[in-house]
């Protein structure tokens, strides 16, 4: 017997979760952009898309967030922390690639020094993921050794049933079980067969790519210039990447009082690495694209045994000049043969 969540019970689930003190968040279409936002009722959810336009990282590592307020006096400086509120949240309807991306970034934000902004939100959030039964030509999770029904990073995995009826429920973590216990009475118990996961073809040879990237001779390869020639350095691929984690600090305020913020930054920008002296270690767009690929598929896996990519494909899907990780790794696969 397996547990089934019927679609027409979703409103009751949300009500019970709200009653238990959870904030419920899901993919909604807001200002024509599908993104994660708090919901009150099930009909606000936009579960039909292959993937929301915005990523799940917005919920854990927002585009901008205040870290603390400072107040400068003659003899003292007071700082007041803005740590995220300790509020239990349930994200309903994440995709496996987005959920995986959060687990991929955990070791980065916890590497010796723990980023309390990230971990506060991680520790208070239950991720309910819906396995993909459809994919588009940009999806590439299987190329990253993940799958349209990967469980990495998820607390509960839902597998869609036929006829849009509901989902088969898989508990994956203690946190997931806790959230499920609140809606236990609303679940059916029956033997049901879920729809098969989407067929996502493998687009490149990840191992061959890693080997090519690890070869020091290829660091100065002309390939980097050719492949990045049309990059306009807009940063879209980094901002819409669920695993991209680079940030900057900025102070907003006047001489005596203000807020220090943590903002997204991007390795695509020349200023990102520019020294005060004017020297820039990555002064060309090709050096910056090389950094992006090297970081995701060579340096990051070298440190954390995980690729810094979960194959969502947004970088390629949304690139204004039709570049992206897929093409680069396909070309590297060819070069390594």
């Amino acid at each position, binding site marked *: 017997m397996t547990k089934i969540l019927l679609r027409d019970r979703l409103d009751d689930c949300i009500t019970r979760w709200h009653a238990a003190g959870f904030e419920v968040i899901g993919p909604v279409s807001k200002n024509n952009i599908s993104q994660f936002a708090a919901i009150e009722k099930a009909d606000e959810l936009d579960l039909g898309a292959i993937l929301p336009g915005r990523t799940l990282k917005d919920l854990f590592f927002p585009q901008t967030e205040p870290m603390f307020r400072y107040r400068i006096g003659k003899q003292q400086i007071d*700082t007041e922390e803005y740590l995220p509120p300790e509020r239990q949240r349930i994200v309903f309807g994440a995709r496996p690639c987005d959920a995986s991306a959060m687990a991929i970034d955990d070791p980065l934000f916890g590497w010796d020094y723990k980023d309390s902004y990230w971990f506060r939100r991680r520790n208070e959030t239950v991720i309910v993921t819906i396995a993909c039964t459809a994919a588009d030509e940009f999806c590439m999770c299987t190329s990253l050794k993940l799958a349209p029904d990967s469980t990495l990073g998820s607390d509960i995995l839902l597998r869609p049933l036929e006829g849009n009826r509901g989902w088969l429920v898989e508990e994956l973590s203690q946190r997931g079980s806790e959230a499920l216990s609140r809606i236990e009475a609303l679940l059916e118990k029956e033997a049901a067969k879920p729809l098969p996961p989407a067929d996502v073809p493998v687009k490149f040879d990840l191992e061959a790519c890693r080997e090519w990237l690890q070869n020091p001779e290829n660091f100065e390869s002309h390939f980097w210039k050719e492949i990045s020639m049309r990059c306009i350095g807009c940063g879209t691929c980094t901002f819409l990447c669920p695993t991209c984690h680079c940030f900057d600090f900025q102070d907003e305020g006047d*001489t005596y009082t203000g807020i220090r913020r943590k903002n997204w930054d991007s*390795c695509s920008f020349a200023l990102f690495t520019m020294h005060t002296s004017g020297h820039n270690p990555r002064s060309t767009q090709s050096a910056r694209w090389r950094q992006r690929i090297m970081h995701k598929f060579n340096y990051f896996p070298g440190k954390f045994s995980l690729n810094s990519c979960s194959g969502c494909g947004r970088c390629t899907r949304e690139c204004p000049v039709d570049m992206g990780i897929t093409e680069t790794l396909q070309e590297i696969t060819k070069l390594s043969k």
Partner: protein
Amino acid sequence: MTDNTQNGQENIYRPAIMNVVGKRDEAPGVKTLRLEFQDPVEHERFRQTYRTGMFGLYGIFGEGESTFCVASPETRKEYIECTFRQSGRVTSSLASAEVGDLVTYRGPYGNRFPIEEFYGKNLLFIAGGIALPPTRSVIWSCLDQRDKFGRVTIVYGARTVADLVYKHELEEWQNRSDIELVLTVDPGGESPDWQHRVGFVPSVLEEAAPSPDNCVAVLCGPPVMIKFTLISLGKLGFNEEHVYTTLENRMKCGVGKCGRCNVGSVYICKEGPVFTAAEVARMPAGDL
């Protein structure tokens, strides 16, 4: 290598508040601030963790943070000294801080010079211009326990006489019989009363010809100086494994998360800033 753990700090991005207790003009546009912790708990944390070679992020709220080495040695942990050139927004506001003002500090971060491994060895320090501060931190760490080391040679050069930093300490080192100090300025940078060498650091070093036997070299300077000095050290017979240097890159977090300071796969903030020349040679040159 040191343990880089969190030390019970809840928010790793929240800086400590420091009193400016001393200020010195070193050279045109170059200043040294001496800072003391306002909070004894923060000071104790620094005392427990700071080792020579580590860096910090110094700042002024409203302007931001800048990364420099801790220029004072691990043998003197009652205060922090930092020396910087006034060039951007943060360094300009730090430069205008006066004794009695407050600034911020985050750190100490990064790795360290393995000074215990230098015990019993001869030491050669080579620095150029504004890169004397990181070298000076090692110099004093060794001079404060002088009997543990063999010969100490310091080769220091700057573009002009005015650009030499720590002039009062250069004088002190000059007068000590247990240090050989070689000072030089670039051709054209000498003043009428300049008593020392005129010439670039690599050639002056070759003339001074310190022996590589049982010797460790610490080399800090601008990239072009490092490049040619390494060639000279090679000619003198120094092994790259025994030459230590520091790398500096733009940083925001200082703790391996913000993603900008890496050279190849090496994060300067976490795995550096102290490297042997052999380690630097293994890094992709196109990323330096």
